[in-house]
């Protein structure tokens, strides 16, 4: 029957596990957004629309062959670079930083694209030099990371620059960056800290201190963290129950549908809910790493590994910042926070994972 055939066609490129875990996380997201927006159906509907769009994008990407993804890597990376240069030259200034580029039809944020393009590019590069990998190749790869990173830093957007660097670093890591080099980098980084500190202006130090200890700016950024901690702590083991978070509904938590949505969730669903959320995230990450392990090519392995660890980084950084162990940087909780662009790039990433996984299934058959 044609319906069955259609269903098969739709299901064919999908990895059921990854889809299942993603949908569960999205359910968590919808429930929490409903509560955090004071039961606004409109907000939930609008989230559903962006979920729909992102799922279609994921499916389309999942249909591509990894070879196709690989062929696309350099052009996407180059386009991303050109757009970043464009932003530096003609970008719109929002929030005091140049991040958006108006291309006539829409405003786009090329740094978001770079989060996918950098691991793709590196995976492509290492695949090409797979047979005779030398140390110099890591140097070139580092340059491939440094270029977009510098451009994003210039915007200035330290948070995104670090996330792009992290995605690139994960690709280097899986490509076999020697352990001693990594150890050396760590040592150099730690040693440079006091030097950098002594060269900073007083106001810069102040900003760093606020980043580390929110209590020094209790009316500004620190306010978010303090209220977030109260929300999480008062949730207890069982939580206050869905739609019953007092911190949330008394307006104490700022940005409660976006960056601080975890505080809302945690207040209402408690430690139990947190464990469930951590397990869901673990399942996604585990599945991603399995796909990386199964991948038939270097490109697939590196891309899957880097994308998965990036996903972990977002989740870790967001929950860490809301619960007060990491500085407040604007990173949404992946798949859970309200916000279409982040959702889109995450699910496109998952589409790539699925494409890599399907390719391996095909080979087996």
């Amino acid at each position, binding site marked *: 029957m044609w319906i069955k055939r259609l269903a098969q066609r739709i299901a064919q490129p999908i990895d059921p596990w990854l889809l299942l875990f993603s949908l569960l996380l999205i359910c968590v997201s919808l429930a929490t957004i409903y509560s955090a927006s004071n039961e606004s159906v409109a907000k939930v509907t609008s989230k559903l629309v962006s979920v729909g769009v992102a799922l279609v994008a994921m499916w389309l990407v999942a249909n591509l062959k990894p070879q196709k993804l690989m062929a696309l890597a350099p052009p996407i990376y180059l386009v991303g670079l050109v757009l970043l240069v464009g932003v530096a030259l003609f970008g719109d200034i929002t929030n005091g930083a140049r991040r958006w580029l108006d291309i006539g039809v829409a405003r786009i944020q090329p740094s978001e694209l770079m989060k996918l393009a950098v691991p793709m590019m590196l995976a492509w590069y290492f695949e090409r030099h797979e047979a005779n990998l030398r140390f110099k190749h890591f140097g070139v790869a580092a340059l491939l990371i440094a270029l977009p990173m510098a451009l994003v830093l210039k915007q200035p957007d330290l948070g995104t620059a670090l996330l792009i660097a992290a995605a690139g670093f994960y690709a280097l890591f899986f490509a076999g960056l020697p352990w001693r080099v990594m150890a050396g980098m760590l040592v150099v980084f730690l040693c440079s800290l006091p030097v950098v500190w002594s060269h900073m202006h007083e106001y810069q130090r102040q900003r760093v201190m606020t980043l580390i200890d929110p209590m020094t700016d209790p009316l500004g950024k620190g306010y978010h963290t303090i209220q977030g901690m*109260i929300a999480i702590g008062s*949730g207890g083991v069982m939580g206050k129950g869905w739609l019953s978070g007092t911190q949330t509904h008394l307006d104490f938590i700022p940005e409660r549908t976006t960056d601080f949505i975890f505080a809302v969730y*945690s207040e209402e669903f408690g*430690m139990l809910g947190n464990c469930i959320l951590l397990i869901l995230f673990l399942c996604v990450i585990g599945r991603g790493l399995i796909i*990386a392990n199964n991948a038939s090519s270097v490109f697939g392995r590196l891309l899957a590994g880097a994308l998965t*660890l990036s996903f972990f980084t977002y989740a870790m950084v967001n929950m*860490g910042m809301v*619960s007060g162990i990491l500085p407040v940087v604007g990173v949404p909780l992946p798949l859970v926070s309200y916000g279409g662009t982040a959702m889109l790039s995450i699910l496109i990433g998952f589409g790539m994972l699925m494409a890599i996984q399907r390719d391996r299934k095909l080979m087996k058959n």
Partner: protein
Amino acid sequence: MSRRTFLRDHHGERYSFQLRLLVAITIVLVGFGVLLSRFVFLQVLQYDKYHTLAESNRISLVPIPPSRGIISDRNGVVLAHNFSAYTLEITPSKLDGTLNDTVEGLAALVDITAKDRRRFKKLLDESKDFESLPIKTRLSDEEVARFAANAYRFPGVEIKARLFRHYPMGESASHLIGYIGRINDQDLKTLAEEERLGEYKGTDHMGKFGLEQSYESELHGKTGYEQVEVDSGSRAIRSLHRSSPIAGDNLTLTIDIQLQQVIEQAFGEHKGALVAIDPTNGGILAMVSRPGFDPNLFVDGIDPVSWRELNESAARPLNNRAIQGTYPPGSTFKPFMALAALETGKRRPSDAFLDPGFFTLGNHRWRDDKVGGHGYVDLVKSIVVSCDTYYYRLANDMGIDLISGFMGPLGLGHKTGVDLPNEKDGILPSQAWKRRYFKRKDQQRWLAGDTISIGIGQGYNSFTIMQLAQATSTLVNDGVQFRPHLVRFIENSVTSERREVEPQPRQRLPYKSENIEVIKRAMVETNRAGTGAPAFSGAPYTSGGKTGTAQVYNLKGGKYNSHSIRADLRDHALFIAFAPADKPKIALAMIVENGGFGGKAAAPIARTAFDYYLQGKRPVQAVTKLESSPAEEAEPVDGEDANLNEAGHHHVD
């Protein structure tokens, strides 16, 4: 063999990759483990603490707004300060009855005027329900007592002690001091974008105009806060921690407010602008824009009637004419043209020619207003008698791009960078400018005729008075240019440390000192025996100047007759001047809108300013009072310039 190596490599690599996967899994598990232990810490171990905080008692952060920095003039006269007063405030969302009933009830206790009501209604439209809005500011002690006794009848209405901004000078210097106003939605958005919302918790005003706006971040100060424990009725139980606010920095201006007021009075009812600069450091001594307005109206939120009056008045009192009005410089442009001629080698001081009273190019004839011409004219005489023909020729010899290339570095047609918001650029015409400015291809080409009227400061030229003052001051300071500035130093409110705003010159223009001397000599001669002489006769100091007249109305070849022309179409009177001649301490540029001839309408005001600044002499009433109609004056003997060519387009902003 090669196959073996490949396989071995392949396996080796595979193994290495899996090892790294294991490391990655470990890192993920460790990371989530840290998170989990954090959750255990917050939600299990510290549950009681946070539960109490969230449920029964809440820690509330009460912001304590800082007091705004004080603005004073160079002699310490206070121009903007704060005082504390009680206000009666309504939070609409907390009211029991209707807003109208509440206001009526309050009106029985305190005096609420119609103006207060209008102002309140406007605030209401601009803000959100849960904001506390003042219905009446500056309550008397008696009113405070009367309300306090009846407060129980008015839930949602409170008396608050607040700091108010006051501008003791009223209309005087209003354009430069500016004002603060209530923070509106647009401001909130901007603050949020700059991540400065935290600094403005508890503050409901910010700089909206003038120095109050441009030095907002210095004047504002740092908000303090008090951490208080509140019960479920949000009454404060005890203070846990207090961090005091830090008052904003104080501004000491370069302005001499006495001089400013002397000049403002000298303007009388005339519209116009004047900028006086200390050429040796770029400090602005006076910056007048007439008419002015009372900045105190804006502090509590201006009521709609007053706002309409100010905003819709044809005299545009809210417009800072000194930096936002752009005008053709008229003949005040000639000294700069003359300097350009000397510096570029197009003229020597001694070059003279016989002025026939007109200049011809192609089919066009540009006339000097003195029929028959000025006889033999050299460079000095061309300035003293304001000979147009000399400059028609000169402009034609130089060409537009050489002219604009010289005037650009002098700062004409570019923002001076004065420390005020919304400064205008004006227009310094060049071939490239005309290509950019006009859309139609046939209008874009620079015509040789366009250059001619530029020579006498007419045509496309359009500068601000601030630019003219800067250029004059740079000229008399031997080419050493400072950025004009109003703030002399910023004083830290805690440490009293003073930070100078502009200690270094911006650039040194490489003019030959003998050339500068020639121009200065010609300008001194202008005030001694030329078009500026009537205003400066008997002055105990020597001064230099140049008069100018800018056309508002294109006469289409007709003869200018001030009687037959509407007052708002009469020519603008301009004047640039400096004194004392040997070591200038003050340089100025000014315009009297529709004032007629520069020598008659503008120069006397400059004289008044110099007399006061150099001699401490205050004007007698008769001197300050200008004739309201310059039309009664006879045409000046030596012929002020009226550019009567057919091709003249005059843009007056």
